[in-house]
């Protein structure tokens, strides 16, 4: 009995390592074939429409609401210490540094990542990828690389839009609804948000998340068993894995970027 248990553990470990290796090779090949994504820009633009433009609704609406909630909750907490004037700082810093990139990343993973996996998985299941290979068209260059670059370009734009909408939401609630002084709100914000320290680091975060999410989504789709169950399982795994990876990467990046600065 223990022997079979140990065997099972060993098999799972080997499979896991094999998958990681396969994913790394997949990532390398994808980068090697990236040239086509820019040579045939139309393909990349088409994918940017599907993963970027179509994600706009959920990103903008959730950004606005997150900002409005931050405004309400932040005001409630800050006014206990008599420092409502710091509301702008609170809203802007938490959005630009953390919530913008992370929440936009999670939205992107569930909205665009799952769609990418399902699409590629289905292409594989219906043997479209094999058909391309038969016609001497490299599916990695034709299908995978444009989707990767579309995701990597879309993600920072979506995160910036999320942060901007959130700050607008915080402004609407804090200034328009509750009545924090407008001048204090903006000047406190501008006094404490630094361009390179906070905004650029947020952009770097969102680019990293974009790379991670699209790679996971593409790999899961490419690796999916060519059955209905396989594709659905791969779609679920994409959302779960990329959400976890976004959160873990966020912690690591934050530890590097903001440690030692206040």
């Amino acid at each position, binding site marked *: 009995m223990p022997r079979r248990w140990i065997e099972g553990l060993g098999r799972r470990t080997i499979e896991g390592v094999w998958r990681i290796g396969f994913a790394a090779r997949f990532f390398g090949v994808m980068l090697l074939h990236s040239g086509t994504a820019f040579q045939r820009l*139309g393909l990349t*633009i*088409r994918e*940017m*429409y599907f993963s*970027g*433009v179509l994600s*706009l609704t959920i990103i903008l609406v959730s950004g606005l609401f997150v900002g409005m909630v931050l405004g309400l909750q932040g005001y409630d907490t800050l006014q206990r210490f008599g420092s409502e004037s710091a509301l702008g700082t609170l809203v*802007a810093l938490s959005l*630009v540094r953390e919530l913008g990139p992370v929440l936009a990343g999670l939205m992107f993973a569930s909205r665009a990542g799952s769609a990418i996996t399902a699409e590629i998985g289905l292409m594989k299941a219906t043997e479209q990828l094999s058909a391309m290979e038969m016609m001497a068209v490299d599916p990695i260059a034709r299908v995978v690389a444009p989707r990767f670059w579309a995701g990597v370009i*879309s993600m*920072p*734009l*979506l995160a*910036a*839009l999320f*942060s*901007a*909408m959130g*700050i607008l939401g915080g402004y609407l609630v804090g200034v328009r609804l509750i009545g924090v002084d407008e001048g204090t709100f*903006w000047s406190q*914000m*501008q*006094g404490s*948000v*630094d*361009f*390179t*320290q*906070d*905004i650029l680091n947020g*952009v770097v975060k969102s680019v990293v998340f974009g790379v991670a999410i699209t790679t996971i989504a593409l790999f899961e789709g490419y690796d999916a068993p060519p059955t209905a169950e396989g594709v659905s399982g791969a779609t679920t795994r994409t959302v779960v894995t990329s959400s976890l990876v976004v959160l873990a990467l966020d912690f690591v990046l934050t530890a590097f970027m903001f440690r030692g*600065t*206040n």
Partner: protein
Amino acid sequence: MNRTVLDLWVGLFVIAGIGALLFLALKVGSMSTVKAGSSYDVVARFDNIGGLKPRAPVKSAGVVVGRVADIRFDNETYEAAVTLRIDKRYAFPKDSSAAIMTSGLLGEQYIGLEAGGDEHKLEDKDRITLTQSAVVLENLIGQFIYGKAQEGAPQ
């Protein structure tokens, strides 16, 4: 979908994204990081800097003229060497003095620069010799209690 319509949407998306970034950069953040070349560094030594942190503002007459670039401990004089990065637009006399102040009772600490009367101006890598350390609240209370105890002691 038609190719041109698609292009149009993606173009709008990119413009909106870059617009959001610009909004963050200009309206939310301050492009206040003083660039190298448009500033000069001077070093001021303090016995005690209290809670001063890097990037704290350097103010003169209440106006921000620069930022604290670096704080290190000098192992020979046992003092704190604070590098102040001051905007080139503002020149200060050589005998200016620096003091560590607190905005409000418990607010953040900043460096106050008081202009002197020298005709020569501070230049890059100069030192400010006249400094005043941070007021440490515990020392102040300690002195106060000590003074009170002396007053009440029988002669």
